[in-house]
């Protein structure tokens, strides 16, 4: 009895209440127990490390041509062989991973920040703002994703940064919806009302009390979208609308290799396998997280 009075007396801030999300330590244990998550994380860690260390690991400079070694098969001097210009495929795949991961992380980061902010504001403040924002999101949703991204790229001009923006914008409505729904629930909880009653500003209530309680689904969605963002980036590059040559991008490598596929399949095979490996590991982790955090949550998987 007395302790509760003391809380009021010292105006100790109301602690954010986390109903469903397991604590970090528990979550870590659960992840360790899921073979899918462990395998996925191990592959991801390897890929991320290789991409970061690419300048040190790559046996040859990415754009260096070896005219006498065109279409070298895998093994020997070049671990994965060479392409039409005699460029080392391993080096190009390593640098291609850099582009893929960079674009994926930046675009999903952009969508996560903008989308969650929009979704939480819409859900928390409600009224006309909610209606306007969510109708705008509906309109964005009305476009097929790849087509919308292509249109944005055409307007802004092809390039790596444009790819980030295009994918980011396409993903914003997804995060807005994911953030809005639980915000509507959390808004009505007693601890949010208490925080409001204590005179906390809207922004502070959202950041301190709403955000921590809705972060789980956003987190899971981000993992899944990292997987699709890699596919997305490679598709745009494949169509010639993403990263521009001579910079290596996995999609662009498949596109270039395809023209000589009857002469040598390796320049097409390896970059594609590299994409599959990265996307699969993100999907493994995302799938495991979904099972751990909310077995009832059913994600509609749509690849681009």
């Amino acid at each position: 009895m007395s302790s509760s009075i003391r809380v009021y007396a010292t105006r100790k801030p109301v602690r954010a209440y986390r109903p469903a999300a397991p604590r970090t330590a528990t979550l870590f244990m659960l992840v360790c127990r899921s073979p899918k998550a462990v395998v996925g994380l191990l592959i991801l860690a390897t890929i991320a490390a290789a991409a970061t260390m690419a300048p040190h690991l790559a046996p040859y400079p990415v754009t260096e041509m070896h005219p006498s070694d065109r279409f070298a098969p895998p093994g020997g001097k070049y671990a994965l062989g060479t392409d039409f210009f005699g460029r080392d495929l391993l080096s190009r795949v390593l640098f291609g991973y850099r582009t893929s991961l960079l674009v994926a992380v930046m675009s999903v980061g952009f969508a996560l920040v903008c989308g969650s902010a929009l979704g939480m504001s819409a859900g928390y403040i409600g009224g006309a703002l909610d209606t306007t924002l969510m109708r705008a999101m509906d309109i964005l949703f009305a476009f097929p994703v790849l087509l919308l991204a292509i249109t944005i790229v055409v307007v802004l001009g092809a390039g790596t940064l444009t790819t980030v923006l295009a994918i980011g914008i396409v993903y914003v409505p997804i995060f807005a919806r994911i953030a809005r729904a639980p915000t509507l629930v959390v808004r009505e909880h007693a601890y949010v009302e208490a925080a409001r009653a204590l005179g906390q500003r809207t922004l502070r209530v959202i950041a301190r009390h709403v955000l921590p309680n809705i972060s789980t689904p956003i987190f899971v969605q981000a993992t899944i979208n990292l997987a699709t963002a890699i596919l997305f980036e490679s598709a745009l590059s494949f169509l010639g609308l993403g990263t521009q040559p001579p910079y290596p991008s996995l999609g662009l490598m498949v596109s270039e290799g395809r023209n000589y596929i009857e002469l040598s399949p390796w320049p097409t095979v390896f970059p594609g396998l590299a994409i599959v490996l990265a996307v699969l590991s993100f999907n493994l982790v995302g799938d495991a997280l979904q099972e751990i955090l909310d077995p009832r949550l059913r994600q509609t998987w749509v690849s681009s």
Partner: protein
Amino acid sequence: MLRFARNDNSEMQRYLAQRLLLLIPVLFVISLLVFSLMHLIPGDPAQAILGFENTDPAQLAAVRRDLGLDRPVYVQYARWLGRLLTGNLGTSVRTGRPITTLVAEALPFTIELAVYSIALAVLIGIPVGTLAGTTSSRWADAGMQTLTLLGLSLPAFWVGAMFILLFSVYLRWFPVLTYTALLDAPLANLRGFFLPALTLAIPNAAAIARMVRASLVSVRREEYVKVARAKGLSEWRVVRAHMLKNALIPVVTLIGIVAGYLLGGAIVVEQVFAIPGVGRLGLQAIVQRDYPVLQAVVLVVTALFVLVNLLVDLIYVFLDPRIRYA
């Protein structure tokens, strides 16, 4: 199910009318957005038509007048929209042909590709999902789960290239890049479209299989399934008549979502297999800076996407009358 639908007939009709009316503002906003986006593209369309070496201001002004580019933007939009409503999508600045004809020639290829690949996705996805959802072997389930996850991780353009390499170049089972009209030679056509349709179907088959499995797992312990077993029905009958029937309702929605996305995914597959569909038309328009064509493609595909989604919503309500027309 039909009994429910009949009871709710007037409500259903009202819902249908409401949804159809709602289409008008949605399509209007989409047209506005597409028009504005195309106007944001840097560069002068008149200059693009004349060629960049021609800088005669008089000729440039003449072309601009012809295209109506000298009028205010809202007038341009109104004229474009007016023509649109009469089915006139404008003229290609590269070939001079009416865009409506170009789209009408390309659209059947894209639609066939989409329908074919949905059929394949359903034919592969539902059996795989049913096996995974009803097997008592944890390993078989885990194996199929991993396989479907792999299916979701494959880039379509790469799978397409690998298919061409394996089946057309090495094994010579399928012809390379020849497409005949469906009605001229149905069998040759279905053969030619098999690899592109399969490429497009793989991730969707995986998504459908996962959905079917999840649905089956969730109804496995329902009372009515236990009752059906207790009645002594064969396992196959329990699965087919009692579990799948209920489990397939969310799958219908998924198939709808997938159908919409196929229209976008077709862009990549058409490019890989050189199919002269709408996606390829749009990509060529980008390369040739034929922006009226690109504008028409974006508009037509998006309108189709919206219509498919509406259709799916309606089917969903019809299948499960418990869902109120929210």
